């Protein structure tokens, strides 16, 4: 909630960000504008959290607002303050998940706003500051895997609105890995969980039909999932290309491309966008253009994004010649296994992606994914974003760091920050630890040569 000053970097900007992601920014801005006026166009609105249910909402004729995305947007624009203050005044503790605090703060503003109840617009008095003309919900749907707080958060939203807005919960088994056959995308646990969630999606569709009075458009679901599958394939191709040396694009470029894959409608524009991203990366590979000027180190990033510091962090790492080129939040999330999607019958593949939330695995599987990615991207070190209010992401990090050191000899550092609360970011800790790790990598290289 407390803003911190971005310490100016001491050298010129050494990042070379993708140009194509700017188009994604425009698409996302248009999406929000469209959502803000959805009520005026007679649309019903759903607030949801967790996995990307937007294709289902699209086929149900709804407008949708992803709670985490909205909180991230506010934080990235430095506009989270009023919502977080409203949440704090309502009684939410500053140590609570800052996504939920921000989003619940919006809910509180909606309920408290002088005109909010009547117009369905979040706290009219705070609109200018919030830049958040978020319409009040007609439905809540919770689709949270991994973090136990997610389901509780939407239940509290339901209560903030005095239980007057219908809510639907989808329960996700945590992929703990009880049995010897359990593994990534394999084993009885994976199979049974997939069908359990698929069945709940069917129940959700029936629930939406009953409440909207509209028949569900299955053809539209198949169509949008066809576009999303293609976009996801292009995204994966782009991620694969980033294994090149020097890396043609970075983690920060992919962070900029999260919103489109996470909640924009499945359509040709989405495919075109990821095609342009993939093509720009391919062009860079062909021409030997790197995402960071004079790439010297290759680093993996574990942790959820620090949305307050996106641009700042990209410049900071580049200043040290560090290409942050992969990370759990992009490599192992957001329709990351498109081959699972059967476009004729997409629900099972969708359910599986919801289960593949990067916080929904036991450490055994996360360890497999992290070591695999570190080897494939040939990284020199790992940076762990110790995300103060995201216990789901941070829980396994120390075990992952230990494993990377023991199994691959890869060093790591931790820096403190948060998803949507800048006050937890510790600039000097990151600077000193990063410098130390890079120095250690230099020493290791010298010894090896």
């Amino acid at each position, binding site marked *: 909630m407390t803003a911190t000053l971005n310490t100016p970097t001491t050298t010129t900007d050494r990042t070379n960000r993708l140009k194509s992601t700017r188009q994604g920014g425009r698409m996302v801005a248009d999406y929000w504008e469209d959502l803000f006026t959805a009520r005026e166009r007679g649309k019903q609105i759903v607030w949801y959290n967790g996995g990307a249910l937007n294709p289902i909402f699209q086929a149900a004729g709804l407008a949708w607002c992803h709670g985490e995305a909205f909180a991230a947007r506010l934080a990235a624009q430095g506009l989270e303050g009023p919502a977080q203050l409203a949440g704090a005044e*309502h*009684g*939410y*503790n500053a*140590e*609570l*998940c800052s996504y*939920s605090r921000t989003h619940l703060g919006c809910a509180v503003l909606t309920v408290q706003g002088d005109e909010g109840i009547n117009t369905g617009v979040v706290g009219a008095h705070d609109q200018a500051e919030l830049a958040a003309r978020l319409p009040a919900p007609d439905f809540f749907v919770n689709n949270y895997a*991994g*973090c*136990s*707080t997610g*389901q*509780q*958060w939407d*239940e*509290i939203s*339901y*209560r903030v609105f005095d*239980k007057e807005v219908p*809510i639907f*919960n989808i*329960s996700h*088994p*945590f992929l*703990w890995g*009880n049995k010897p056959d359990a593994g990534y995308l394999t084993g009885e646990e994976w199979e049974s969980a997939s069908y359990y969630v698929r069945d*709940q999606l069917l*129940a959700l569709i029936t629930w939406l039909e009953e409440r909207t009075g509209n028949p569900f458009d299955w053809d539209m679901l198949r169509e949008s999932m066809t576009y999303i599958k293609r976009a996801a394939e292009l995204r994966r191709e782009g991620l694969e290309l980033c294994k090149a040396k020097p890396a043609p694009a970075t983690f920060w470029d992919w962070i900029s491309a999260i919103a489109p894959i996470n909640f924009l409608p499945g359509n040709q524009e989405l495919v075109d966008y990821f095609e342009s991203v993939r093509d720009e990366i391919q062009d860079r590979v062909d021409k030997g253009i790197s995402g960071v000027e004079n790439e010297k180190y290759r680093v993996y990033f574990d942790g959820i994004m620090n949305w307050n510091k996106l641009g700042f962090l990209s410049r900071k790492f580049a200043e040290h010649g560090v290409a942050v080129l992969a990370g759990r939040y992009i490599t192992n999330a957001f329709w990351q296994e498109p081959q699972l999607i059967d476009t004729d019958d997409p629900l099972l593949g969708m359910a599986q992606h919801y289960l593949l939330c990067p*916080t929904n695995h*036991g*450490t*055994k599987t996360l360890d497999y994914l992290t070591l695999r990615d570190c080897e494939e991207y040939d990284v020199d070190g790992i940076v762990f974003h*110790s995300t*103060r*209010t995201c*216990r*789901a992401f*941070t*829980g*396994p*990090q*120390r*075990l992952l760091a230990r494993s990377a050191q023991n199994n691959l000899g890869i060093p790591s550092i931790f820096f403190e920050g948060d998803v949507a609360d800048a006050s937890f970011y510790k600039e000097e800790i990151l600077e000193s630890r990063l410098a130390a790790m890079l120095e250690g990598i230099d020493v290791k290289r010298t010894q090896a040569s």
Partner: protein
Amino acid sequence: MSRGAAALEALRAVARDPRSHIEAWRSAHPEGKVLGVLPMNFPRELAHAAGVMAVIVPDDQQPVTEGRAFLPEFYCGYTRNLADQAATGRFDQYDGLFVADHCIQLLGSADVVRALEPDRRVFLGQLISSLSDSWAGQKTAQMMSLLRTEVESFAGTTIDDDALRASIASFNRDRDLMRQIFDARAGGDVSYSPVDLQDIVASAQIMDPDEHHALLSDVVAERQFLPRDERIRVHLSGHLCHAPRRELLEVIEEVGAVIVDDDLWTGRRYLQAGMDESLAPMDALAKWYAGRNTALPCPTRVQHDVDWDAWLLDAVKRSDAEAVVHLMPKFCEPHMLFYPELRRALDEAGVPQLLIETEHEGIPLESFRTRLEALIERTHRNRPAYA
């Protein structure tokens, strides 16, 4: 020392030194297995029926040292303590660890145990937490069945239905007796201090229910009704899955309050719901799980028509409490999320309240004392003034 006093002392000893009690059990049962279980909803009856000693792993209140290397400092004190127990070898008294609840922090600590104790079985049998869903009953029954199978595998034996019925009866009997004491307290009998009551419940979470019941019966046999005095009547709320520090309970009463009821894990929350012995035993386990949240709502469960705030207001009326003290373990997200609902309900009802955030280490007791004194002063003003 009287028989009752000796029995209370024995329960106190188990509550405060569970390790010695477990070691004694092992000596007496050299072939037996000890299963650690994490709060809140694993049915210990299953393990008991299989001849396994099932212990709800307590926060052993040791400072977190080596465990700091495995979980971040912004995990709750209980889970960091569990990680520390694993990191320093204090977990070696358990042959396995079973978890039935999806709390991301609990799972984080269980993952540390799994990493550091690879030879021990660490099993998650996740009970559905969204209890309003039409399929919740079926999923609960399925999970209870899976838990039974896994306990059988762990114990190396099959669980006989009659043995399970007997275990259910044993735990019920013990819970019933504890509930009588808590109900008596809510009705005006303060013959046991809050620390005594915490020791009684904490020991029940460790001991065999029959052994615990026998000792508790001796304690209760000597009970003499002790009416409340004129101190401010306080309800304690929170600490959902581990015990608050004893000194905190003591200071609440030192400042002029008398604790008349609670919804703490080492209090009424543990014992409020029993199992229906008229049902088939597996049905009883499933119904018990669903019924626990209506008997005493928990913010870790999602059930739209069940309200912790409403339960709290009813409890306050039942016990004639004049104020509520919320004990919130730092970083407990379900409690942080639900707290404004509690605050709003109590404010609207005109019940004075105080939030105290507790930490695993370093309780600022004198700061708490000052705040508690202010609450007591404020609550005194609510009392009618007599000429």
